[in-house]
């Protein structure tokens, strides 16, 4: 009976309460079976905790940091390209920036505007152009993630200013 209760405590060991610990200690002093079970559990936990991740040295962390910085810098550049295009919307001229060529991750990304389209601000056309814009160059999800709250509000504002209330 007691052994059953103790084996349930060993099952949860070391996540046990102080009272359970006392009960356990008292019991294993007189029961060999439960004492062996606890010993086995302790040795398994010890073996499992000896498993450590392979270490990363300073040089490897330096490479890691460089690669991360490159990704962040290229993100910032792309972000400013998007903002630039949004500001063009603000002037009433919609610049459709096609061909944002982000080649391999090792190359500096360059932004080329290969096609310009002047759109009047009728709602449908604007919406269409916006969708086109959103679909070009980067995947939509990534493109939206590029915009921070300020940029999104800028976009919303310009849509409202140009097309709202008509």
């Amino acid at each position, binding site marked *: 009976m007691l052994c059953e209760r103790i084996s349930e405590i060993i099952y949860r060991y070391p996540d046990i309460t102080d009272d359970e610990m006392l009960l356990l200690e008292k019991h294993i002093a007189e029961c060999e079976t439960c004492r062996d079970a606890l010993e086995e559990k302790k040795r*398994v*936990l010890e*073996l*499992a905790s000896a498993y450590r991740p392979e270490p*990363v040295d300073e040089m490897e962390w330096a490479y890691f940091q460089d690669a*991360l910085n490159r*990704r962040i810098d290229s993100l*910032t550049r792309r972000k400013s390209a998007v903002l630039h295009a949004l500001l063009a919307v603000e002037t009433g001229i919609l610049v459709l920036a096609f061909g944002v060529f982000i080649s391999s991750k090792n190359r500096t990304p360059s932004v080329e505007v290969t096609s310009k389209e002047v759109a009047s601000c009728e709602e449908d056309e604007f919406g269409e152009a916006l969708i086109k814009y959103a679909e070009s160059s980067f995947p939509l999800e990534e493109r939206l*993630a590029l915009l921070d709250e300020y940029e999104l509000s800028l976009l919303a504002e310009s849509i409202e200013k140009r097309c709202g209330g008509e």
Partner: protein
Amino acid sequence: MEKGVEDRLVELARKGDKVAFSKLVTTYREKIYNFCFYLVSDKSDALDITQDVFFNAYRSIKRFKANSSFYTWLLSIARNRSADFLRRRKPENIEDIPLSQPDNTQSVDDNRTRLLVRASVDSLPAKYREVLVMRFYGGLKFAEISELTGENINTLKTRFYTALEHLRKRLRRYV
């Protein structure tokens, strides 16, 4: 890192301060790497995922709620990234990993330990491995794991004890 200092760095990073962000990276990269390593059991994969974690953290830092812990937030990104990675990775047959037979010596060398435990941890279903890693290797409280995973504390406890029992059954021959 002191909470006040960290809050300030997070605040600066939210405004796009790259130096502040890289201080946060230096503070947490090893912890995040360790966490990913236990989940994917490979150094180079764990480093790649760690880089993704920080890249995504930088990208979405405005979505981080200042009242929660930055480390826990990073862990939640790491958890999602690792899960994506594991879904994509072809399941490897862990029975193929060579396990040397137990010998008479009491001490277990590092490499053998790694293989033995790795095989045992790897053989756990993802949900069990995750709670084992967070609790046993990461030292997180069940309440924190619950916050991260959205799972009920009792469910997590049951999974954790089951995972430990699985390790015991697999490793008992070697201890």
